[in-house]
């Protein structure tokens, strides 16, 4: 008998205008590895949460059909009981920390204490999970003091330690570097071989379809393909784009840096964390007008630290950073923001206004643009990212992927000569990623620059012309994709891997 049996399943969230899942009939066998793909808002997260027993107990709404997982009717069994059969890792690792444990080791043990395992077995399982996710050296650290990639591995380890017969992962590699993503793929393969049934919802289509036995594509809550990756990808590709990825032709700002002066120059900068650990060592590079740059590196290589130097958030311990020719030590962050726009990974730290339009007005107003200029800049940014129809919506009423585009548009509206995006594709579907690639190309043609910090190698290859690799705080590579020689390719393969293209 199939371990997961969904029959004519439909679910509509309370007060939602339309169903999140419609007439879903799917069977998944024990030990099968299923990829779940689809555009943002297609119903993937609802599918995952439902398998873990959250509907209708946690999220109320209208249900039809039946859902059995590991012999349990998950629509009627208490979540606490389903939890023994289904391990769920949702998309935001930081919010999955229990908050009641003080070390990584204890955090993984939390679930095992809840199901009443004897301490000796808890220690054995936690030790195994730490090793499986390669985070043994973090065992005594506070779960809060980890990077996004480390927290993601912790969340997966915590679910794995419960050894559930069914494991459900929602965007498990959004914050993992390519090597960690490959290692996770191997781990999941061996778990499936051992009989664990695994469902993975993911936007990184190549990674997930290469890994899975079967691929399920969802669109507007309906199953539109159920079979080989090729079939599922073809079904997705055949969908009409809901909003054309139309790019605004108007550029309101002439480029203030005609090729003469770089926008940003980093000269031999080094930085140490307060703990004394060297984060950056002797890094020199510059960004000129019209460049498209991808910055790659493993989790913890120093990318986020380097990015914070580009607009003066962090002053270098030695060396200097010039933004538009001015030393960042003598310029305020707000002053640098005129030239370097920075969008961080966690967009919740940025969005606060009541409407998308109001959110976009904030930056240009801070730069003291006139009211007329502000509206022009806002309209242009809205059009560039295809958000015009959503201008009146509250940012937090939008799906996470759209919210990320709003956060990017809010900085784009400041018309910065250099736009820096930290992990911009996290949670974005193919359409969103395509918009970002077009954004980079369009900006380059207008003589303004974009720097992308990313783990997504294929995105980096398509969106950027130049590639910078950081390795343990040092600049390991700074080259153009098209002129990589054999040595540089080897260097790239050793540090982060090679894109498929």
């Amino acid at each position: 008998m199939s371990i997961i049996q969904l029959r004519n399943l439909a679910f509509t969230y309370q007060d939602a205008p339309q169903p999140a899942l419609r007439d879903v009939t799917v069977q998944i066998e024990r030990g099968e590895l299923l990829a779940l793909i689809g555009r943002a808002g297609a119903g993937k997260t609802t599918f995952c949460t439902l398998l873990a027993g959250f509907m209708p107990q946690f999220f109320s709404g209208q249900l039809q059909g039946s859902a059995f997982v590991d012999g349990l009717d998950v629509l009627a069994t208490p979540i606490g009981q389903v939890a023994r059969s289904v391990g769920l890792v949702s998309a935001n690792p930081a919010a999955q920390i229990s908050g009641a444990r003080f070390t990584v080791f204890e955090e993984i043990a939390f679930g095992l204490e809840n199901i009443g395992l004897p301490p000796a077995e808890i220690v054995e399982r936690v030790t195994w999970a730490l090793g499986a996710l390669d985070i043994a050296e973090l065992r005594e650290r506070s779960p809060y003091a980890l990077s996004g990639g480390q927290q993601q591995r912790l969340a997966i380890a915590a679910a794995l330690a419960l050894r559930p017969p069914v494991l459900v992962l929602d965007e498990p590699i959004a914050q993992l570097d390519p090597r960690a993503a490959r290692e996770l793929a191997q781990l999941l393969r061996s778990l499936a071989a051992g009989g664990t049934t695994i469902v993975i919802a993911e936007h990184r289509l190549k990674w997930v379809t290469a890994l899975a036995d079967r691929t399920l594509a969802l669109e507007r809550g309906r199953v539109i393909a159920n079979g080989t990756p090729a079939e599922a990808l073809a079904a997705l590709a055949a969908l009409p784009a809901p909003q054309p990825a139309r790019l605004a032709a108007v550029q309101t700002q002439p480029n203030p840096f005609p090729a003469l002066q770089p926008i940003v120059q980093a000269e031999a900068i080094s930085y140490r964390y307060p703990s004394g650990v060297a984060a950056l060592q002797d890094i020199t590079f510059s960004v000129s007008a019209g460049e498209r740059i991808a910055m790659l590196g493993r989790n913890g290589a120093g990318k986020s630290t380097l990015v914070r130097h580009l607009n003066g958030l962090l002053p270098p311990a030695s060396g200097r950073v010039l933004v538009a020719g001015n030393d960042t030590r003598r310029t305020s962050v707000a002053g640098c923001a005129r030239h370097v726009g920075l969008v961080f990974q966690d967009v919740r730290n940025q969005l606060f206004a009541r409407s998308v339009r109001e959110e976009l007005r904030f930056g240009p107003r801070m730069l003291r643009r006139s009211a007329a200029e502000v509206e022009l800049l806002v309209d242009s940014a809205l059009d560039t990212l295809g958000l015009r129809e959503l201008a009146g919506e509250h940012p937090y009423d939008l799906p996470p992927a759209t919210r990320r585009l709003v956060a990017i548009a809010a900085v784009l509206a400041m018309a910065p000569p250099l736009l820096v995006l930290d992990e911009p594709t996290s949670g974005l579907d193919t359409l969103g990623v395509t918009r970002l690639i077009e954004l980079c190309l369009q900006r380059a043609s207008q003589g303004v620059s974009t720097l992308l910090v990313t783990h997504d190698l294929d995105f980096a290859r398509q969106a950027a012309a130049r590639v910078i690799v950081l390795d343990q705080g040092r600049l390991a590579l700074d080259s153009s994709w098209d002129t990589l020689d054999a040595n540089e390719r080897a260097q790239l393969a050793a540090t982060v891997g090679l894109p498929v293209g």
Partner: protein
Amino acid sequence: MIYLPGSGILHRLHPLTKLAAALLIVVAASMFPSPPLLLGALALLLLLALAAGVARRLLPIMVSMFLPLIASLFLIQGVLFPPANATTLVALGPVRLTIEGLAFAGLIAGRLLVTGIALLLTLLTTHPADLVVGLGSIGLPRSAGYVLLVALQLVPDMVARAGAILEAQQSRGLEVGRGLARLRALPALVGPLLVGALSDVEERAMAIEARGFLSPGPKTSLRTLQDDAVQRAARLLFVLGVVAVVVLRVWMLRANP
């Protein structure tokens, strides 16, 4: 978190033993606030702090928490509002420093100090998770223990998030300078903090449920507390002591109302 890791005598005691002892000292000091008893209790507590190796951490906390309070106590009781018919020690115009006022202030200060140090010593030498496990063993509900531990970590979590929000908004040109500019910056800083905290609540509730927090059946704990017959007996004695002190006090009040 106030806990200071260590391996001294107090660190090794069961959390409930420390709590019971602290309770006895606090109750005795408030029921019988005589100078010798208070001084004796203070001396004992300070010796324990030294033996546990936490005196260096304890004293600054005591100074910052209690010095302003005690100073104002002496000012109010000793100088500004002395008890009626008090003996004047020094008089400076209308302001009189009285013996009774100082003695009264001293007694209250002594009680405050004994209570404060007894509780701080317990917290400084007990990991909060151990304290919750200990309280759980005498009936504190698991959910209450969970909330207690989350609340402890909430502050560092919020501080870290506030820092990240400040970075994000400065990167959008927000000046966090002086005066009015600072006030105008508030919505952009407080808004994301509140929204983030609220949305985390739902996701965290999901996460702990998915990890079996409400799973039926018996629970275990990775933390095992060291306990022995001597400590169990001591706890019983301390609790009986608390009862005895209260009964004695009530009896004395009835005898000499």
